[in-house]
């Protein structure tokens, strides 16, 4: 291959932090005007590599070339000067400012007086930038009125307006709907056609194969392979990432459904969902599929008694329950492994041990009040071991763990109380492949113990691979219920987009 076709080359990059070698002699290159996917499990070194590229980690060894010129990145400013821009997974717009104001944040266009901002000119230029990319967003709209996908696009526009020729996107689709993904991909395609180089980080296989021209795989801080996407299959990619062939990604056996544990009858909540009825049996996994905003999370929260019902009834083991509080749900043996572990699942500030024991402190208390630290420690150690939570000690803060390990901590915390039913809401979002498989295995083992599972997921393969039955929601309505033998991606997707079956 000709060297000049590469917009960016990183050669022999090594960087270490106290106790760990985060990247070890990694050499990668990115073709100009192409989308290169950067793949690898959490902890593989992707974000470290990107943080070097945006000038955040400066103590690296090795060489970086933009085109033919060797550069040294020693500050965030350096990266911007060299046309490198990153769109972070968690966007930080100023919500009360307009789209145009956000685009020109820090580089406001001033009136001749040199003091006041020329809003008219900013809006005009923002509009032109948006139009060039065929994005229909009003530049005078407040940022907070935009969807996550639209914010991503505004970030992309901002990068373009900086003159960025290399744009890094970190899991841009982790919080947006499928139709928005299409729109975002169209914009990415345009950026590529303009000759910009895109570095795309994602865990979603199907997306990678849709958007990426090249794929780079890292593992444990080392370079594994770099290939055109066409020359890789999904299985090859997974095995490159995990370093072993994954026979069955979804470890589960045959279900033996028992009696009904939970029944929801004609449940409605204003603007969220309408007239939904279903049953969950012991010993089975009930999948709930649907697009973002279909009312799935709201349904889960309602079952977990965080939000009141307008109409309808929820029965646990045949007995109608009054919606009270989370505490009532926990007493009835219901647990919620929520969509966003950082918001609802964990106390990142507290130790792994304190996180695991928090729900069931009564079990380690004398007289419901005084803790028995020894007993607590033994029980927590036991369950953390069962769930293979990887941490240097149980006293490290939860925030220091990887996403997959954090999710295992959430699972361990609920499992400790031996619940009868667990509601999983997007259990494996943003989690690496190996941890994902472990969480699936735990989910299945839980169901196999004659317990009930509800699993909400946006990933169709996960729904199909894990569930015994699946409900499909669209816009707050139950579109259909499919048995395992009726599953197909096409069928679930057509229900999810609101096409009724005849």
């Amino acid at each position, binding site marked *: 291959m000709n060297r000049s076709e590469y917009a960016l080359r990183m050669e022999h990059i090594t960087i270490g932090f106290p106790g760990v070698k985060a990247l070890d002699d990694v050499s990668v290159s990115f073709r100009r005007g192409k989308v290169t996917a950067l793949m690898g499990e959490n902890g593989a070194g992707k974000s470290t590599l990107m943080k070097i590229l945006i000038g955040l980690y400066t103590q690296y060894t090795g060489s970086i070339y933009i085109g033919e010129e060797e550069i040294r990145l020693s500050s965030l400013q350096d990266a911007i000067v060299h046309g490198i821009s990153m769109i972070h997974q968690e966007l930080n717009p100023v919500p009360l400012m307009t789209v145009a104001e956000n685009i020109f944040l820090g580089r406001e266009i001033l009136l001749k007086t040199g003091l006041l901002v020329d809003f008219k000119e900013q809006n005009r230029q923002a509009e032109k930038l948006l139009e060039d990319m065929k994005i229909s967003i009003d530049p005078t709209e407040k940022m907070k009125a935009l969807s996550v996908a639209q914010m991503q696009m505004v970030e992309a526009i901002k990068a373009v307006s900086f003159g960025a020729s290399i744009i890094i996107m970190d899991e841009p689709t982790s919080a947006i709907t499928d139709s928005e993904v299409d729109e975002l991909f169209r914009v990415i395609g345009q950026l590529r056609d303009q000759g910009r180089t895109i570095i795309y980080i994602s865990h979603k296989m199907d997306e990678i194969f849709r958007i990426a021209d090249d794929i780079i795989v890292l593992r444990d801080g080392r370079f594994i392979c770099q290939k055109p996407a066409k020359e890789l299959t999904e299985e090859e990619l997974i095995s490159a990432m995990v370093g072993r062939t994954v026979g069955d990604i979804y470890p589960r056996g045959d279900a033996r459904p028992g009696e009904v544990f939970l029944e929801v009858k004609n449940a409605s909540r204003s603007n969220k969902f309408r007239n939904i009825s279903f049953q969950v049996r012991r010993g089975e996994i009930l999948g709930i599929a649907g697009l973002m905003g279909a009312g799935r999370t709201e349904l889960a929260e309602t079952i977990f008694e965080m939000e009141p019902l307008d109409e309808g009834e929820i029965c646990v083991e045949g007995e109608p329950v009054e919606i009270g509080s989370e505490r009532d749900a926990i007493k009835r043996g219901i647990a919620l492994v929520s969509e966003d572990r950082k918001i609802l699942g964990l106390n990142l500030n507290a130790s792994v041990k304190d996180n695991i024991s928090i729900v069931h402190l009564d079990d380690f208390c004398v007289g419901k009040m*005084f803790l028995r630290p020894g007993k607590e420690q033994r029980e927590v150690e036991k369950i953390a071991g069962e769930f293979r939570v990887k941490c240097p000690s149980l006293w490290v803060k939860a925030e220091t763990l990887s996403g997959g390990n954090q999710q295992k901590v959430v699972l361990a915390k609920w499992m400790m109380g031996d619940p009868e039913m667990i509601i999983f809401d997007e259990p494996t979002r943003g989690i690496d492949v190996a941890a994902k498989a472990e969480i699936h295995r735990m989910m299945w083992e839980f169901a196999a113990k004659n317990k009930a599972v509800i699993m909400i997921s946006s990933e169709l393969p996960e729904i199909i691979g894990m569930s015994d039955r699946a409900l499909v929601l669209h816009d707050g309505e139950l579109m259909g219920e499919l048995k395992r033998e009726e599953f197909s991606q096409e069928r679930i997707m057509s229900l999810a987009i609101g096409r009724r079956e005849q």
Partner: protein
Amino acid sequence: MRAGKITVSGFFERFGIVMILLLICAVLSVLTPSFLNIRNFSNIFRQVSITGIISVGMAFVIITGGIDLSVGSIAGVTAMVATSLAHPGEYPLFVSLLAGVAVGVAAGAVNGVLIAYGEVPPFITTLGMMTLLRGVAQLYNNGRPIIDLSDAYTAIGGGFLFGVPNPVIIFVVIILLGVVLLHYTKFGRHVYAVGGNEQSARVSGINVRRVKMIVYMITGFVSAVSGIIISSRVMSGSPIAGEGYEMDAITACVIGGASLSGGEGSVLSTVIGALIVGVLKNGLDLLKVSSYWQQIVKGIIIIAAVLIDITTKKKRR
């Protein structure tokens, strides 16, 4: 409780503040010969105990992510109410103490209800209560202090037990209660959970409102104890008793490493924080440094403590 394996950085994180206290003591004992003796230390502890008692309660509030600015005013109202029932030969001592504590806890409960159930931000609620209760303290005896107190009452702040000043003994008891409550009970764990992540605490089945309610009642209680001690020690119920105590209590927590955004802090490190302020004040007094300079030093220490905390945390990332 938060033990486990001790690493070098972990050691510094946990005991660094103790070392700073020892360092200050070492420097002061070199600079002034009158610093390092038992009587002086007894003196320091007695001075520290009055706001130190409040800082123990403040630690609970700050760990939940809240703040209580009304503690000084609660101490003031308590001092007025308790002393008004402590004239010689009127009521038994316990009546005045009980009334004082009841007033303090009730004021804390009002804070708690407004914050936990009314969802008024803690800063605003307690700022309002601080002003309001100071008015109550002034109004109680038309702005005049209450004097002529029974010997039993004045002994609380002025007396000794086995040669140790009573306020110090009360301080130690409050510290022990605080340590047990925060680190060895379910409630203590809930306090950390609420401050660390309120939503996840709620989903974990914790009664978040009740936890918040209780922590403000705790500060109400400790403020009342402090108000009784100070009025006893100066032998009068002053309507301005306790003014500025909130700042001393918050300072102790912050120097002790508590995070104002919640989830972090401990009783013992708060006490060390209070001692650092107390030792420094005492040392500077002995060195005859003017009180104006002392204020400047105190301000620098608050900012330096947080700055050091933040930079060490950054390095660990």
